[in-house]
């Protein structure tokens, strides 16, 4: 490529074109620019075309280790079988001391690494509280512009209610582990108000039924004028219950 006057702008235009074509390297580079909050990142965002339709963003929240990444892995398989292109953004916490991070969510999604219909990116929270990173809405805009039908966002999983996700996702899935009992009571105030689907994962545990009933009865207490919130059981490691979860997610995504 020759270094003519307009070289820089032309390279930006070409990059945006490749992003819109869904070229993984270009998407990846652009996300780095957005994460680093560079001027180039801003220019890329400004040049993205207006989307034909709003992004369908699914938020997955739940306490540490409940199986968020494993469930996303199973969901990807299910959504790919339905020929949807899936983007996944998994947020892990940055160390408040060093600013560094170990991003381990992808361990659970390894089998999708080479599927061109799947784009997975790990993001460090970089000082943002609430289970996400500061640039998440911009990264979502970018991956959406790259033509992914459904975007799945995994929050940090602080054990607190990651309510910030409800500002970026239009379908919010909250995961629970069987046998939480009192902890569920504590979570009631926050997550039940904002979740669209409740999932008891690790349903291979004998405590599953009790937890399902508990969640159902807490939902019932809210009164009948509230929107219907499905309560599902999944075993993320085997994929059991995941087809139904995909059905509910797609129902909500298309009704928004």
């Amino acid at each position, binding site marked *: *490529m020759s*270094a003519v006057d307009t*070289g*820089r702008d032309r*390279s930006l235009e070409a990059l945006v074109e490749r992003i819109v074509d869904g070229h*993984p*390297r270009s*998407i*990846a*580079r652009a*996300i*780095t620019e957005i*994460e*680093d*909050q560079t001027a*180039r990142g801003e220019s890329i965002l400004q040049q993205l075309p207006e989307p034909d339709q709003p992004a369908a963003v699914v938020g997955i929240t739940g306490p540490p280790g409940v199986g968020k990444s494993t469930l996303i892995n199973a969901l990807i398989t299910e959504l790919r079988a339905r020929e949807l292109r899936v983007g996944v953004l998994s947020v892990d916490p*940055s*160390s408040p*001391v*060093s*600013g*560094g*991070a*170990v*991003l*381990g969510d*992808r*361990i659970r999604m*390894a089998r999708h*690494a*080479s599927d061109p219909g799947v*784009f*997975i*990116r*790990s993001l*460090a929270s*970089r*000082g943002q509280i609430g289970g996400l990173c500061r640039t998440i809405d911009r990264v979502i805009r970018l991956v959406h512009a790259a033509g992914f039908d459904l975007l799945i966002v995994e929050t940090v999983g602080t054990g607190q209610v990651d309510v910030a996700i409800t500002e970026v996702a239009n379908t919010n899935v909250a995961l629970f582990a069987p046998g939480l009992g009192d902890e569920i009571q504590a979570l009631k105030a926050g997550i039940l108000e904002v979740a669209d689907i409740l999932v008891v994962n690790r349903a291979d545990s004998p405590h599953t039924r009790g937890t399902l009933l508990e969640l159902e009865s807490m939902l019932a207490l809210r009164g009948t004028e509230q929107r219907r919130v499905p309560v599902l059981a999944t075993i993320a490691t085997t994929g059991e219950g995941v087809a139904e979860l995909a059905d509910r997610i797609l129902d909500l995504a298309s009704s928004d």
Partner: protein
Amino acid sequence: MNHRGKVLLTKIGLDAHDRGSRIVATYLRDAGMEVIYTGPWQQIPDVVNLADQEDVDVIGISSLATDHALVPGLIQALREAGLGHIRVVVGGIVPNAEADELIQAGVARIFHPGASRESIVQEVEALAAEARTTIEQDHQA
């Protein structure tokens, strides 16, 4: 926020011992780097695609037995994919004769048992900065 370096720590081949990678992951994190950690038994094409999507600067391969013999194949695959700017380092037990071969094949650095935390951190950080500079030069082109 500053880009301090993004590193993929992974294991290709059959050996399952990943304690070394876990320790190095915490060293790098505590030095401010962002580390993707995958666990053992990764396939080379998957590592290449993962490195691509994550836009990493450095790949660290841990090898205690014979896994390092697969590293030249990884470097080749990265170059073919147009990811030749990514610096590849190997940590673990590598016999001297084979170490020379790895360096010839394009491995940037081998960390033998007993390599200090400081040297690992400093050198990986420097290699990450080098990789970044290569990309930025691409942008100007």
